[in-house]
């Protein structure tokens, strides 16, 4: 399905999610925070797949879960289909849950071991009174299972009787059964081996076409994200540093971090050896993030300005956003 730019499914403005860290003094209140998301703004249009990449701990999953209000946002705004859900009570969000779903990374812990596949998939359907228990529900569950590549007879089996790939399909079927508009795929294929990964990715893409879905696809695997996404956002230490259509980001990365990240994709082409850009040091603490541009501690292009001024989030080409003072120089990196 084509992307419908007139319909914004998810809009987040300056979204912040801080986790409290216990301070060491006995009487001190929680004064320190892990800044998992520190002011992220993003619009996701209907029918689009937005990929989200970044190293582990940069706040990708937190963002995905905060958008769905599985975590309470600290600050900022979340609009879902135009409704402000930022401060909505769980009780009021409950009916909207049928429209927004999540697929989890770990196909083992995300399925209740005491429930059969049929119960897992059907639970929410009866909870939201979409179906009553009975033959009709069972038929619907089986049709969803078939769509996700599961056989009929599996309906009465328990999750532990399945392989990782099959379990991930169960998780997908569970989300899909509610007929949602928007699905967050939180590292949905990371726990699977490569051949199963491609099967599940193809399944996700087919399902998207058949059901008019919108995805936020979170992954640390750049090749996976490239394969599935229309636009890609790159995160670093709780911030979105670059957002662009997926082709642009691979051809012409504007942020030095993106460029370094892309240079780390392994290539099978021996002729065309890429220059690997090695970033010095590790990820700084997100309890005490660096001043100015958070990336300045590791950035080969950093100057005094980067240490002091937070770079602006600006559109430097059509649909291409970046937050870097010296994005023009990024091209020169690695040469």
């Amino acid at each position: 399905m084509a992307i419908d730019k007139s319909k914004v499914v998810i809009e987040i403005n300056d979204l912040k999610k801080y986790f409290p860290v216990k301070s060491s003094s006995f009487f001190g209140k929680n004064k320190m925070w892990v800044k998992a998301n520190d002011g992220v703004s993003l619009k996701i249009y209907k029918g689009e797949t937005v990929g989200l990449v970044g190293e582990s701990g940069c706040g990708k999953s937190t963002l995905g879960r905060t958008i769905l209000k599985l975590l309470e946002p600290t600050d900022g705004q979340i609009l879902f289909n135009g409704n402000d859900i930022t401060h909505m009570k769980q009780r009021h969000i409950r009916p909207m849950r049928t429209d927004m779903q999540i697929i989890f990374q770990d196909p083992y812990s995300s399925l209740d071991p005491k429930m059969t596949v049929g119960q897992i998939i059907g639970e929410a359907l009866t909870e939201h009174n979409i179906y009553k228990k009975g033959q009709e529900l069972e038929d619907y569950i089986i049709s969803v299972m078939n769509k996700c590549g599961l056989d009929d007879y599996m309906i009465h089996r328990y999750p532990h009787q399945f392989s990782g790939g099959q379990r991930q399909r169960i998780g997908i079927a569970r989300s899909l059964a509610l007929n949602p508009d928007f699905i967050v795929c939180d590292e949905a294929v990371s726990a699977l081996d490569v051949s199963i990964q491609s099967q599940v990715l193809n399944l996700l893409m087919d399902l998207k076409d058949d059901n008019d879905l919108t995805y936020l696809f979170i992954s640390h695997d750049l090749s996976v994200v490239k394969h599935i996404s229309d636009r890609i956002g790159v995160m670093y230490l709780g911030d979105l540093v670059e957002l662009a259509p997926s082709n642009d980001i691979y051809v012409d990365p504007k942020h030095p971090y993106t460029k370094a990240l892309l240079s780390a994709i392994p290539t099978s082409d021996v002729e065309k050896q890429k220059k690997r850009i090695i970033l010095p040091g590790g990820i700084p603490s997100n309890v005490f993030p660096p001043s100015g541009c958070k990336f300045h501690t590791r950035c080969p292009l950093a100057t005094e300005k980067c240490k002091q001024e937070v770079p602006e989030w600006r559109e430097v080409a059509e649909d291409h956003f970046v937050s870097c003072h010296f994005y023009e120089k990024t091209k020169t990196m690695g040469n």
Partner: protein
Amino acid sequence: MEENKNKKVELEEKELSVEESKAAQALREEQLSKQERDDVVISPTKVIWNNFKEKKIALLGLGIFAFILVVSFIIPIFTPSDINDIDATKIYQAPNFTNWFGTDKLGRDYFNRVVTGGKVSLYVGAIATTIATFLGVLVGSIAGFYGGKIDNLLMRFAEIVRSFPFLPLAITLSAALGSRYDASQKMLLIMVILGILGWTGLARMIRGMILSLREQEFMVAAKALGIKDRNQILRHIIPNVVSIIIVSATLGFAGNILVESGLSFLGFGITDPDTSWGLLIKDATASSTNVQWRPWLWIFPGVLILLTVLSVNFIGDGLRDAIDPRNNGR
């Protein structure tokens, strides 16, 4: 040219055979899945029963327990004589054909007294365990699920309850209230005290389990699916802690029978002329002559307590294994 053609034909033949085998495989799979479907469509209760049946020792426990239940609850209805029929001519008779378990110091039929005492002991055990388990599950799951302040409050309360010394409290209560109530009210009182003081351990264990369950992604998934809190607890949390509940309930049941025996033994539970297993043992061991020369007085209730406690534990063990779907052996 000719060779190429041959090769092509060969290739086609190969493809054909591949297709054939694929079709055959599909057919086989279809048959297989049909077969599997047939033996898979059994209700969960049936699955549990099938698993339970395979545990011989659990079946044995069930048999013994059922027997004890039937004997304790049915036989008293049909016995011709009252448990307090005194016969001065038959004091301290050893087991014989008219008095299967012998007689006691007042010439009362001991079989009658043991069987009726069993009814009392089982009643006390069952009701006290039900109260304790219900409270434990309720408090533990609410504390674990909501966490934070509610958790803190409930757990501190549990600690307060836990710190009540049971024996002094029970002794004081039955001493203070005992004279005002009749036997059945006193029995009820004991059950309630046992239940109200006994839930804290289970509540703690369940809370702990739930804290770790809450971190599992399927709980996040349940939230994302919009499952109500109550149903999250009932459908996801309770089934995952049910093994603990069963173990705790069976141990608690056995324990409560023993505590009731202990209380009666100390003279603070059921008192003569009523009867319970603990009371019978107490009376029997009141004098060393009884212990030494009239063993039927303590052997029968003692063995019955032992059998009941053991069989309940076997049943609990078997049930716990049967309920766990990972034990299905498939």
